[in-house]
């Protein structure tokens, strides 16, 4: 599939190659070629950084490690050992790739790794390498290394031209890689990791592998660009390539341009490098870092999503500002030169885009058009929960926040009256179809330090069952769900799914064997549409599918939970009930044999409970075995084919709902002495 962005990228590359090749005819001085080369270097570095940090959300502060190792490889090998320059570039890329894999293998294995810890670990890497290079004089002779000028084929013209074309080539490769990744399966996986990593893993995304892949690509690109950088600066010292300004630059470029899109770092690099160049040319070098630091601090606070999104929202305003300001300055011709005009124009355009996109500006622009948007939202939420094609009289508008069920309508009163009465047949029908044992837990235990959350739970779940898992708070229900889905590993015991031992399997592999779960507090991928949220589960399910084939399937699943009309919305637009339905659609979309529902009805109003119960029953009837954790015993009594009661980590009762709920031990443990069911 050929996309517009790809074509644009190719055209831009060809034009820039032509600029380099015909720079003499165009009258471009070598100053411009060096500036363009520098822009290309930073585009490559910022893109390399973005492929890991922007896409996956793991911010690296260690970009200098790639620049340093890349530049040192080339400088030392070609400068001190006479190795051909063109050989050192792939060597540098290889070394940095290995370094990245090493760091990733350690960092991503840490159970407690969080974004902050990753940032600090990566911060330490260039320091250690720099210390190593500084102390071991044998590496660079102690004073730094001159990079010899390689023999350039005549076709490339003079050295500045050659340097520029080389940097351009690396930048183009980097940007093309970023573009390809963003539109690939890996890009989707990385975006899911950024939004909710453990959810992605449980859904079937091999998160470790994708993070390592991002690390590797980032390292290889960073290393190759670092190697070319050595040639650009001509003389390599520890300070010039391992310094903290390199991570500062790439982070500012990424944050400024936008981290989730391949164009973001390109925009950031162009702006920052030209701005830096202008500041230097006016003798304001001492202000460089101050301005960059200020931009970073301000941006994170004001516009953390970056320029790309803002420019895309208002392309004409920004372009207009650029043309008017730069053109105006050119016409006046009172101050500066072409570059100055361009930089001022770009800055004004960026500022305008940021200001126009800010909350205050949006509110101010909308001041004349009151409440049109909220109204639409209210209508949307009101009819989405009514299930099309369901029995008449079920059409209770339940989604809107203040929804009190209209008096006299069926379904008012206690949760789930009408629906649950009808459900008795459903339950018995389910019981008739019991199949082979699907999930086996054998003496499963899980301790958290001294706390015995689960103790010797032995449990069989047969195909076609709808098992209600109940118990007082802290009895181990959610722990059991976490063990079954692989989020935790049991301290002791064996868990089998469909005859396969899954006790020590990674969560994404358990998902592929056929386990899916929902979360009590819904955890959608916030950066994706509702459709893509579900499509993710299809893509990374047992049979992997590309995104464009996963989307239609996702829509079918959305129809099952009656969210199909919201397919293009984002999770932020949904209410709690809709988010829980989305959780269910997503879980079902991974085509599981067993679905674990963790308090899927918690926090819903009576009408919403009715609707959710209907959806659960529909999923069950489609042939999926369900384990549901729920506190509403009235609902479970009718919905479940079997109840399992946990109390203080052990299995207290197990059997027909009626029998279990009348068990004196259960009543005592769960409902207190006086309670009646």
């Amino acid at each position: 599939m050929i996309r517009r962005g790809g074509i644009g990228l190719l055209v831009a590359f060809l034009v820039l190659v032509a600029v380099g090749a015909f720079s003499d005819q165009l009258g471009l001085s070598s100053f411009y070629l060096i500036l363009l080369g520098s822009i290309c270097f930073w585009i490559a570095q910022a893109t390399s950084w973005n492929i890991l940090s922007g896409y996956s959300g793991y911010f690296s502060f260690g970009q200098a490690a790639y620049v340093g190792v890349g530049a040192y490889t080339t400088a030392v090998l070609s400068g001190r050992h006479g190795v051909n320059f063109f050989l050192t570039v792939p060597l540098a890329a290889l070394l940095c790739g290995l370094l990245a894999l090493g760091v990733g293998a350690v960092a991503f294995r840490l159970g407690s790794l969080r974004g902050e810890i990753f940032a600090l670990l990566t911060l330490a890497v260039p320091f250690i390498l720099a210390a190593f290079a500084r102390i071991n004089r044998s590496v660079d002779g102690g004073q730094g290394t001159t990079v010899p000028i390689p023999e350039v084929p005549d076709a490339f013209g003079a050295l500045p031209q050659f340097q520029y074309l080389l940097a351009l080539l690396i930048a183009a490769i980097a940007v093309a890689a970023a573009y390809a990744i963003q539109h690939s399966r890996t890009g989707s996986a990385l975006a899911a990791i950024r939004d909710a990593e453990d959810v992605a893993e449980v859904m079937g995304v091999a998160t470790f592998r994708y993070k390592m892949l991002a690390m590797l690509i980032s390292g290889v690109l960073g290393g190759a660009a670092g190697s070319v950088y050595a040639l650009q600066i001509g003389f390599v010292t520890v300070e010039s390539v391992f310094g903290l300004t390199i991570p500062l630059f790439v982070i500012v470029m990424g944050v400024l341009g936008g981290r989730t899109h391949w164009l973001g770092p390109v925009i950031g690099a162009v702006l920052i490098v030209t701005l830096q160049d202008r500041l230097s040319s006016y003798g304001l070098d001492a202000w460089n870092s101050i301005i960059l630091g200020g931009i970073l601090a301000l941006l994170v606070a004001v516009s953390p999503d970056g320029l790309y999104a803002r420019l895309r929202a208002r392309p004409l305003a920004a372009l207009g500002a650029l043309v008017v300001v730069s053109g105006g300055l050119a016409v006046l011709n009172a101050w500066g030169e072409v570059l100055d005009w361009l930089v001022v124009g770009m800055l004004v355009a960026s500022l305008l885009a940021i200001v126009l996109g800010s909350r205050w500006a949006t509110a101010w622009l909308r001041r004349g058009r009151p409440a049109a948007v909220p109204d639409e939202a209210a209508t949307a939420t009101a009819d989405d929960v009514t299930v099309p094609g369901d029995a008449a009289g079920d059409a209770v508008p339940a989604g809107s926040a203040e929804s009190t069920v209209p008096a006299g309508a069926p379904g008012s009163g206690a949760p789930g009256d009408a629906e649950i009465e009808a459900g008795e047949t459903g339950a018995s029908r389910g019981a008739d179809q019991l199949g082979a044992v699907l999930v086996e837990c054998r003496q499963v235990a899980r301790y958290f330090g001294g706390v015995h959350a689960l103790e010797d739970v032995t449990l069989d779940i047969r195909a076609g069952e709808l098992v209600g898992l109940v118990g007082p708070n802290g009895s181990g229900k959610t722990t059991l769900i976490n063990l079954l889905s692989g989020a935790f590993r049991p301290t002791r015991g064996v868990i089998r799914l469909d005859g396969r031992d899954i006790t020590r399997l990674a969560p994404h592999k358990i998902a592929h064997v056929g386990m899916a779960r929902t979360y009590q507090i819904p955890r959608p991928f916030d950066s994706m549409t509702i459709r893509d949220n579900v499509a993710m589960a299809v893509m990374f399910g047992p049979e992997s599918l590309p995104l464009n084939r996963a989307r239609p399937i996702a829509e079918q699943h959305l129809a099952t939970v009656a969210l199909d009309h919201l397919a293009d919305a984002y999770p932020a637009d949904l209410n709690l009930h809709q988010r829980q339905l989305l959780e269910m659609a997503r879980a079902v979309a991974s085509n599981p044999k067993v679905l674990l529902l963790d308090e899927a009805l918690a926090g819903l109003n009576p009408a919403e409970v009715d609707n959710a119960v209907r959806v659960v029953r529909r999923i069950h009837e489609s042939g999926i075995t369900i384990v549901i954790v729920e506190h509403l015993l009235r609902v479970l009594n009718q919905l479940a084919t079997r109840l399992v009661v946990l109390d203080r980590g052990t299995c207290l009762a197990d059997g027909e709902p009626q029998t279990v709920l009348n068990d004196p031990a259960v009543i005592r443990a769960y409902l207190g002495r006086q309670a009646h069911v």
Partner: protein
Amino acid sequence: MNVIQATLTGVLIGGLYALMAAGLSVTWGVLRIINLAHFGLILIGAYLTFQIATSWHLDPVLTLVITVPAMFIAGAAIQWLFDRLRLTEFNSLLVSFGLLIIIIQVTSNIWSADFRRMSAGTNPYATQSVAIGRLVFPVTTLLAFGLAALVVLAAHLVLRRTFAGRAMRAIAQDRAVAGAFGVDHRRLSVLLGGVVGATAALAGMVFSLSNALTPDTAYEWFGTVFAVVILGGIGEVVGTFAAGILVGVLSGVVSAVWSPAAAPFVLFSAIILALLLRPQGLFAVGGVR
């Protein structure tokens, strides 16, 4: 003998690491802010000590009369800013990185990038040392250790015994609930930011006694100090102290026995091992969290 000397010197230098790390650890643990600008405050504290002692011929330790209040205000102001921006833990890392860069550039513009060191005349501590048998302890490291022990003890007592300390621990555990019970999060965090700034003044003063200053020193602290924070357990003052000593001894002994080049590797491996084995920190015994 060599190893014993290296170990003991390491213990004392560890005090300086702990002094630098304590403030960082507490803001991270209590306020969920990773304040890289703290390194900038230490740097300014060190340069101010140098400048005041040099131009007014004050005893460097007496400069604390000026630097402590000044850094208190700076720390409180930065904290107030963070509070206003409502930053997440991660974004605080980015914003404070920006601030740190600004601070370093400003110090570089004022004091230049060259090495600055107090002359022997203004700084009598640099040349003095205490000898016990054949073991020699420079006064500066004794001072560092003493101050660190004092700060850690005071912080521990305040967090354990006083109302403000209990309120801070409440904030650390659950900010919203603490707020619901009437803990004024804003005022406390600005106060804490100020106190942390004051410890930066102490650390800066101690550092300037025995070291030459350049703006880039702030970067050189990163690795060691974060190792101390993470090993000690985030938010654990006593743990930070213990970790500071451990890191000091480790680097000291590795440098003496093996080679100074190996120290960063050993340190880095220690952090990773610690994170693998005890993610909550080696010395987490119950501080603010």
